């Protein structure tokens, strides 16, 4: 949709701001595709492709840690800012712009971004986290 020659972003209304418990995520299905929507609290939301780049775990069911989510299947840590795998890896999913207007959350499903990875902070995966991975299986 063009207006004054500039492509305008299409925002899709996805949910009410109070639909998802704070610090949890839900799967979003739209046009045959699955996304993961997270409520970070303070009216901040985040959307990624729904499945982990590792073995397609449902990211929406993961545990949040700041601006990252841990996949429930094998504990990969995916950045909510860039969609990049922060541990194990490599791997990446798309990140979708979100915005809140009034009491509604909007997502620009057509404008998914494959971001430049942040500077990869070497994350030491302790043996314990590995144990955790096994324990959660």
């Amino acid at each position, binding site marked *: *949709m063009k*207006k004054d020659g500039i492509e*305008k*972003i*299409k*925002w*899709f*209304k*996805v*949910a009410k701001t109070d*639909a*998802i*418990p*704070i*610090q*949890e995520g*839900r*799967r*979003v*299905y*739209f*046009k045959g595709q699955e996304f993961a*929507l997270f409520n970070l609290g303070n009216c901040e939301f985040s959307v990624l492709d729904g*499945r982990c780049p590792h*073995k*397609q*775990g*449902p990211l*929406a*069911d*993961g*545990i*949040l*840690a*700041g601006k*990252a989510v*841990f996949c*429930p*299947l094998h*504990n990969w*840590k995916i950045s909510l800012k860039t969609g990049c795998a922060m541990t194990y890896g490599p791997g990446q999913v798309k990140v979708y712009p979100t*915005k809140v*207007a009034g009491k509604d959350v*909007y997502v620009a499903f057509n404008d998914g971004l494959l971001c430049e990875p942040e500077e990869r902070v070497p994350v030491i995966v*302790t*043996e*314990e*986290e590995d*144990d*955790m991975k*096994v*324990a*959660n299986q």
Partner: protein
Amino acid sequence: MTNLKKEMLVVVGNGMAGIACVEAILKHNPRFEITILSEEPYYNYNRILLSSVLAGEKPLEEIYINTQEWYEKNNINLKLGAKAVDVRSDEKVVITDSEEIISYDKLLLATGSDPFIPPIEGVQKEGVYTFRNMVDTNGILEYCKKAKKAVVIGGGLLGLEAARGIANQGLQVTVVHLMDRLMDVQLDGVGGQFLKREIEKLGIEVLLNKNTAKIMGDKCVDGVLFKDGSIVPTDMVVIACGIRPNVALAKKAGLKINRGIVVNDLMETSDPSIFAVGECVEHNGKVYGLVAPLYDQGKVLAATITGNKGPVYAGSVLATKLKVMGIELFSAGDYKDEGEGKERVSYEDHAFGVYKKLMIQQSRVTGCILIGDTRDANRFLEMIRKEENVSDNRKNLLFEEAPAVAGSENDVMSLPDSETICGCIGVSKGTIVSSIRDKGLNTLSDVKKCTRASTGCGTCSGVVERILKAVCGAEFQAEKKDILCHCVPYAKTQLRHMIRTQELRKVQDILDIYGNRTGCSSCKPALSFLVDEVWLGDHKEDRSKRFINDRVHANIQKDGTFSVVPRMRGGVTSPAELRKIADVAEKYKVPMVKVTGSQRLDLLGVKKEDLPKIWAELGMPSGHAYAKAVRMVKSCVGTDFCRFGTQNSIETGIELERMFENLYTPAKVKMGCVGCPRNCAEATVKDIGLVGIEGGWQVVIGGAAGKIVRAADILCTVTTTEEALDSAALFFQYYRENGEYLERTYDFVVRVGLEKIRYETILAVDEIKQGLRDRLKKSKEHAVEPWSVESKKHVHPMQFQELVLPKEAEALILD
């Protein structure tokens, strides 16, 4: 130079102070030929730990500090069992009880102290002990075997440790104390009340204001008579009324003596060839009975005696820690309320048994008492020692502001090198730092091995670790099991304590105050477990901190669907149940129905939104096959049908499952119950197993047949089913309270040790056992079967819902 005759140093006393001093002397030039006279026929041992031996927490052989090799390696002539009976200082000789005459150039008296025995009639009767040395300890342990009741005379530090030890041996113990409060030397009235309650919780009776008149009985003790006319019947008596410096030999040597052997700041006595160290010494009017000051004295004396005069002993702040398992108590300095210009800062929580008090004079902390929470003991002790002005910090005196996670190591580095970090072994900060640097250590266990710091009572391990962190920087490696997670860098046990004493009921609060705020997938579920376990439902659960399985009470599968495993107690089902399962499986098009290894049926491939509907239609309880919780009891058919069965394993297995179901545990708990040792339901490779035998049951724990295969250990063998279930319950609750998150019983049993587990569960005193049972009961009362509740009322309207947008959803163009 080899012809130069070495000076003869004779040491009287082979105790902690004497040997620590000899060790310090050896660090200077080896200019002495050393002879040690040891009245006790043992190598040097850690006297402080005798109470742990009595309590069954440590075997005797573990408390030796130095072995034969040490004496040999340092060319020390050790005379075991040789009592020095006379000193002729004019001839410079010591005479032993076997009339051996030993000459000295320098004589070191480390004669320690003797137990004070008040003038009571009957103290020579059989069954009356003092509690001072290895012989006493062995004697008490031996006598405990035939006694049922014990009276400990004296409610001081030693008396209470003795009482707890004897109670652990299964005796009914009464502590009688002359004064109006326990540990009256170290505690004020309020502290005394707190301590009394804590001691009584251990099942030990406390009688105050009791003046003992007579120990009664013919040959053996049968009671204690008090001056108020009352009598307490008993089979044994332990006298712990304090100690007196042993100055008998010093008197013969003609030294100056008040209460103890008088020494100056260089640790010299009135005779230039004779020195003294330890409990027998009086410095500046004070006699010390605790180990840390004695080590300080030893270091000064070592410098003086080797001709390196310089360091002076300036006296020590008196500080005491009570080593009774389950009670934390610390007292230091001048804690008394009375006195001009004194201010009192205190905190009392009677329900939790926490009492903290600081005494302040002219903006300086002069004394403190901590009960129930002693984590700040070292911080306060430093304030007292340094006479720091605390006026800027008055707001946060009792409760320190949460330390900046990165900066907290630096405070330990500002301690002087001479600071004793480990009071039991006497290791200074300087020693720890130089070992870390010289030997390239980077884990706490390496530091423990090399310096022996923190191998005594272990309370200093936090400080040792902070020093290690500060010295190592990035090289530091956390002990794998020691801290919960990098997000909340505290030991798990410490976190449990923080949650309790600071009433933290929300995981996010713990992360905000003590962690990095964000947490991660490791620590959030672990903290959720800890909060839940401490508050037993007296808090609001935050589902977002839980793993998805615990948010929706089902096990997530590789494709994002879930599995549903209903509970079938003991693995027993019925045609009606099977019919319901079949109906549900068809109605919801469940892709697979499978019999599990745990004698259950598993419906695999269920969509999240179908979960609550399926639970409602099944009408069966959750099998918890997704959680760190009680999973199941497998059983064999037992006496009901089996021709070999010796016990009713089905009925017992179902009862066992009912007792524990719906309870959360540090890691999953799988159980088995078999009717005979043929072990058809594999009880001996389960976390808890009951194995029927002719005329009774074996209760086994810590078995596994997963990633690790381990045969379970036998906790006990009992004759009745009630006893078997009770023993299993005691262990189960003990594991819940002491297991670390994700630690399976097979690791737990190895880490804690089977003996210790026995002593603290099935062999514990009745009150301890009842405590475990009561807390299990309380948990059980709060526990809910999640499926029946949450199929009707979701914790959030969207608990099981995903968001599905219609295909034709309209896009909006916003500015």
